[in-house]
């Protein structure tokens, strides 16, 4: 079999061919459109007031009408999220590597990291606003970073320490150096774990930044946009901002999934095989 044929086979197995992909997504798309339609009909038939639940058409109208200011707010918030992700993920991976490398750290620090991971870090948002400046993007980025840090760190440690004993013995029988074991076995083993954490981190960072903005931020930010127009009872404008927030969350998630396929393509295969 040629390399090309083999890679096509792999691609087919992952459902990468466009036709197969659309067929696979068809039920989900149908459900989404059906739910929108039901929403619209429900609001109209039951005469639900606009300030309780705006109809999808009203929200879509708001998106179009206020697009420039929504775009500006979304961009402002996106910068916070990306900055927070960058800081949290880099710090989390580095801390994970150090923790995995030294047994003493693993025993002393890891329990605290796991405990910290179950703490509602978002509760610190007003304090972070105070520390880093309520009108600064950095304060929201730091909230996002701290929320992302723990799951990334914990999964990095788990990934780096989950290489099979047989794989480590195999490397030992080759008289491989620690650096070689790290590069050729531990890091590839850890990648699926790290990407799982990254997917979670995108969602957490988006939540962290927007909730952080609820506690105070310039007017051109998604969080403040939502809060402001909710207080004016202009709910369709709040909903429009929420649509942007959703788009950011989903977009980042998809970006991570695509990056994973690029960097660690074997993980999808592994899932396919396990299923």
């Amino acid at each position, binding site marked *: *079999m040629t*390399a090309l044929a083999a890679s096509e086979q792999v691609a087919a197995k992952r459902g990468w061919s466009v036709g197969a992909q659309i067929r696979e997504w068809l039920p989900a798309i149908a459900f989404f459109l059906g739910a929108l339609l039901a929403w619209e009909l429900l609001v109209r038939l039951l005469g639900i007031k606009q300030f309780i639940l705006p109809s999808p058409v009203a929200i879509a109208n708001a998106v179009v009408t206020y697009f420039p200011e929504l775009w500006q707010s979304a961009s402002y918030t996106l910068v916070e999220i990306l900055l927070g992700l960058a800081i949290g993920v880099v710090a989390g991976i580095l801390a994970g590597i150090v923790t995995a490398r030294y047994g003493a750290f693993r025993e002393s620090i890891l329990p605290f990291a796991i405990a910290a991971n179950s703490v509602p870090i978002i509760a610190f948002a007003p304090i972070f606003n105070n520390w880093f400046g309520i009108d600064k993007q950095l304060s929201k980025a730091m909230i996002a970073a701290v929320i992302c840090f723990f799951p990334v760190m914990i999964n990095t440690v788990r990934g780096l320490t989950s290489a*099979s004993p047989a794989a480590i013995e*195999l490397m*030992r*029988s*080759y008289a491989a150096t620690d650096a*070689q074991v790290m590069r050729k076995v531990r890091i*590839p083993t850890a990648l699926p774990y790290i990407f799982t954490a990254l997917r979670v981190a995108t969602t957490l960072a988006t939540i962290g930044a927007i909730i952080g903005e609820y506690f105070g931020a310039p007017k051109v930010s998604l969080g403040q946009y939502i809060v402001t127009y909710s207080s004016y009872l202009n709910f369709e404008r709040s909903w429009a901002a929420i649509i942007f927030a959703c788009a950011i969350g989903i977009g980042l998630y998809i970006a991570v999934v695509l990056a994973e396929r690029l960097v660690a393509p074997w993980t999808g295969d592994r899932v396919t*095989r396990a299923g």
Partner: protein
Amino acid sequence: MIEPSSPGTGPAIAQSSPLPAADVVVELSGVSKVFGLSGGRAAGGTVEALTGIDLAIHRGEFISLIGPSGCGKSTLLRLVGDLTSTTSGTVAVNGKSAERARLDRDYGMVFQAPVLFDWRSVQKNVELPLEIIGRSKAEREAKAREMLDLVELSDFTDHQPWQLSGGMQQRVAIARALAVDPAILLMDEPFGALDEMTRERMNLELLQIWDRTGTTVIFVTHSIPEAVFLSTRVVVMSARPGRITKVVPIDLPRERSVDTRELERYFELVTEVREGLRAGEGGAGLAPAARVRAEGLSA
């Protein structure tokens, strides 16, 4: 081809140990292994895995270690491969310590699980040990291809490991082990997870590979027929503490095939090994055997 023996590389070592018989590759003398010594020495805290092991393995031999679970046959293999250390006694490999031999990459190891890496193609898996010893890309590719040819997987170089059957995966593991031209191939129940048909085919293939490479093989197995079919000598072990109870030389014709399994001599040797196992279990020789029987150890 087997690497030429190199007595000149370690003059200091050669001096310290009186010259071993020229073709002895592995020499175990008075080897014992006790687990759990470092921890608390509470009652039952230690397990005597091996005791009083003396064994000399000659160049080009195919040695099978056979015995009941817990007889320490895998531990013995791991001692030779320097994956664990002896409690007492010495392991000499080509006149060197086991550790020196490991650092000199004298070993190829094959485990029960193939231990292939999903992030590498079949070809790249075989190249792994060559990467570690720093061979050039061209050299790695040529050698890996040669080894995959040897195990008859030339058509699968670009496949991913998970696309192969269990038997094929194990053949990749063997190709990988042979890629560095090891002086000694250590195999720990490599076909234990395979079905009987595949196992018999793999046995034949392994013998062909052994024939073509001339490598010394130490092979751990649970299967009496497998041990007799493959080996030049079968080392029978018994448990608690693990020790060698019998060494059965296999005087079958060197050229072996499916017909070998139907020779009368083959059946006699299978019986001899089986009786050796039963004797070790039942009470021939050493004192603790009676206790072993009392504890109801089953074959």
